[in-house]
């Protein structure tokens, strides 16, 4: 089968002198790198991924090891950094000691694993389910479309966090259930986006051509239409990761998500919320980590949206 026409775009390069064929992804990358905010997002995200991958080596302590009787430290001790004048004979704890006498820095580092995992897992789940439902609704239409989209409308009618809390309350608290809950509440957004793209793509000539040569429904839907309806999904997904991480942190803050002693940022903030005046470092650092992660995904998502939008093609940057 021939490749769909709009996957290759003929484009003038920066000098506008020569014509050559450039793929959509190359263009996207190029446009993305022209936006400083997107680069900042990418850099933060890269750092986070690096930290998550290498936490075993760069974390000075086991994140759930209790240091009572191991070192001479107090509950909720303030940060001790040798570089900034903390006496050398005291053990160094860059972000201090938490309420259970564990090294806060190691916990924050390991927390990146959970947040990234939560973000990708929930959005992955939502994209798979949402794409399937949206594609079915958009391509098949009729009563199928009606049933699926009305169910999605019902789900969208609830504030997402409240619905997630309700689901977790039924399933029982825990990281897996929180993931599932956030995944479920994110599905409608993806279903809608995919349905809208499918509706517009399915009337295009290359689809009609496939249909004319006798392609099966499944092939046309998943082989022809979906690959060409992906761009809005990528934008939605990147921004959705930020929301998912925030929602998961909120659930954990409320004690419904990750259970202790897992070093999840939301639950770390929640556990020490009453010490916000006496031990601010225990709320500040995990909070900052959540903020940076969400910011990174938002910046990247914004950049991607602009880069992938054909209407903004030449003006962006």
């Amino acid at each position, binding site marked *: 089968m021939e490749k769909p026409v709009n996957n290759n775009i003929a484009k003038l390069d920066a000098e506008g002198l020569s014509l050559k064929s450039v793929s959509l992804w190359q263009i996207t990358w190029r446009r993305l790198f022209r936006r400083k905010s997107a680069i900042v997002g990418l850099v933060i995200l890269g750092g986070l991924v690096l930290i998550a991958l290498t936490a075993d080596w760069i974390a000075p302590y086991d994140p*759930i090891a*209790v240091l*009572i*009787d191991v070192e001479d430290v107090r*509950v*909720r001790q303030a940060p001790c950094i040798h570089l900034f004048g903390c006496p050398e004979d005291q053990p160094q704890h860059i972000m201090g000691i938490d*309420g*259970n*006498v564990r090294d806060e820095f190691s916990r924050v580092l390991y927390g990146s694993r959970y947040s990234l995992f939560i973000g990708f897992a929930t959005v992955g789940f939502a994209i798979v389910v949402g794409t399937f439902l949206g594609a079915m609704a958009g391509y098949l239409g009729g009563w199928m479309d009606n049933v699926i989209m009305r169910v999605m409308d019902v789900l969208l009618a609830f504030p997402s966090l409240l619905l997630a809390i309700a689901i977790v309350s039924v399933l029982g*608290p825990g990281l897996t259930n929180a993931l599932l809950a956030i995944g479920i509440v994110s599905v409608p957004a993806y279903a809608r986006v995919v349905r809208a793209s499918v509706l517009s793509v399915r009337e295009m000539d290359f689809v009609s051509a496939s249909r004319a040569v006798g392609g099966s429904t499944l092939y046309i839907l998943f082989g022809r239409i979906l690959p060409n309806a992906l761009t809005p999904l990528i934008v939605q997904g990147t921004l959705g990761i930020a929301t998912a991480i925030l929602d998961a942190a909120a659930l954990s803050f409320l*004690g419904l998500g990750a*259970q*202790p*002693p897992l070093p999840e940022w939301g639950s770390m903030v929640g*556990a020490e*919320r*009453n*010490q*916000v*005046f*006496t*031990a601010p470092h225990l709320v500040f650092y995990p909070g900052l980590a959540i903020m940076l992660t969400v910011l990174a995904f938002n910046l990247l998502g914004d950049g991607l949206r602009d880069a992938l939008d054909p209407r903004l093609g030449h003006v962006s940057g």
Partner: protein
Amino acid sequence: MKQKLFLLMSLMVLVSMLLVSCGGATEAATEAATEAPTEAATEAPVEAYDGMVSEAPNCDYGGEFLRIEAVDEYTVQFTLCYPDPAFPSKIAFTAFAILPSEYVEASGGAGDLLTHPIGTGPYMVADWVRGEQLVLTRFDGYWGDAALTPTLVFRWSTESAQRVLELQAGTVDGIDNPGPGDFAVIQADPGLQLVARPALNIFYIGFNNTYPPFDDERVRQAIAMSIDRQRIVDNFYPVGSEVASHFTPCAIPNGCVGEAWYTFDPEAGRALLADAGYPDGFTTSIFFRDVVRGYLPQVSNVAQDIQAQLLENLNIDAQVVSMESGAFLDAADSGQLDGLHLLGWGADYPDQTNFLDYHFGSGSSNQFGEKWPDIYENLAAGAQLADDAARAPYYEAANNAIRQHVPMIPVAHGGSATAYDAAAVGAHASPLGNEYFAVMEVPGQDTFVWMQNAEPISLFCADETDGESLRACEQVTEALLAYEVGGTAVKPSLAERCEANADLTVWTCYLRQGVQFHDGTTLDANDVVLSFTLQWDANHPLHVGNTGAFTYFTSLFGGFLNADE
């Protein structure tokens, strides 16, 4: 015609059944009624007193009361099935407050009674905005010293940081349970005062012996040896707390007789656990409710430390499970928690019976599963003696049996505190947790705002067990006797004195005369009899309450009359 006759007959049968069920009371009423006219005829103005009597047919029902009788307008006599030296301490407790019989009957035993109780206390309920605040106003007809501040407001927040912040901001005048980290902050603040509350409580790790592997005594003992309790107290409790050597604090007579608790020895614990068939540990859960109490100021941290210790010392992989407070208590009481559970107890009155009998007596709940005869038999024997020295051997045996069977691991007697505006007069912390606000004021203010951990559940405290409810009731209603302000000694209240016969089975209380309820009615002996009977008699039409459990009555006085078994 025939139908009407049948209706009439059945009506009469119903009425007679009702009469029988009311039992002694109506009998006595008719007796008194027949006597009344003759007396009235001879000595004109003195009306004979129509005194109520409640009576059990015999003591076989298992409870403590045999007969409660209003001898005359100001005398009530309690006849008990067995001697009870702690009787004055028990009837001084908030749950046994005296309510006006007319009001209780009109409310049907629930309804208004739960939200707007009428009592004799220095404050009366003005307005209770659920979820927000409870406003009490001074009762001007109070028999004792009138409250210093005209308006008392109860507020609540589960967040200790918010309580401290509001106190610092001056929006409240007193708070309960500042977080352990805030003790130093409050002491350093010249505008505030911290009042330490004596550690008359216990925090324990409970087991239910009907669920494996906790049905094996060796497993419970192994865990008891392998929890470093000193480490928990050192790291997670404020100053003034101590490691528990026994379930009951030593300040209570006979509280810590018998062998002290196991010393921390994880080696021995591991050996014992291997002996029981779990050399590699097992998986279980640690259940707790995420609410701060004086005995457990940092719930989640302690739960996580116990989790870490179990894993490190015994390779027991425990999951921590935080539950909603009410659901947790229900599950614990009905014996549904199949792992370890973290709970505690604060003294209601300073006697061993309040600690041991409530938890391990024959009338206790299923919290720890099957009960041990060598514990509850000793408790039953000890409860009937008056002399502390004579009771000691029984409590020693009971404490040793508890140490052997390990229904729970006593961890700490937690020091807690209240904090007030530095200008507050009469600021105190009660070891029983029932601070008395009638003696407090901030000069120049006509409102005193108190902020506690949680909202009262209801204000009919006969059917509540939560300290946050009891404290609010304490301002509004009064019992026959009372505890001295900020202490544990029993002092007269609605009764000027209560006297016992030689073997402590008949207690006669002489009521204060001219005491007014908030609704203007006057206290008499019948109010006392009804207030006790509606709790005692499970068949009583007013035996309704909030949940109908009347937990304190059964645990302190053995059981209900006419209880369905």
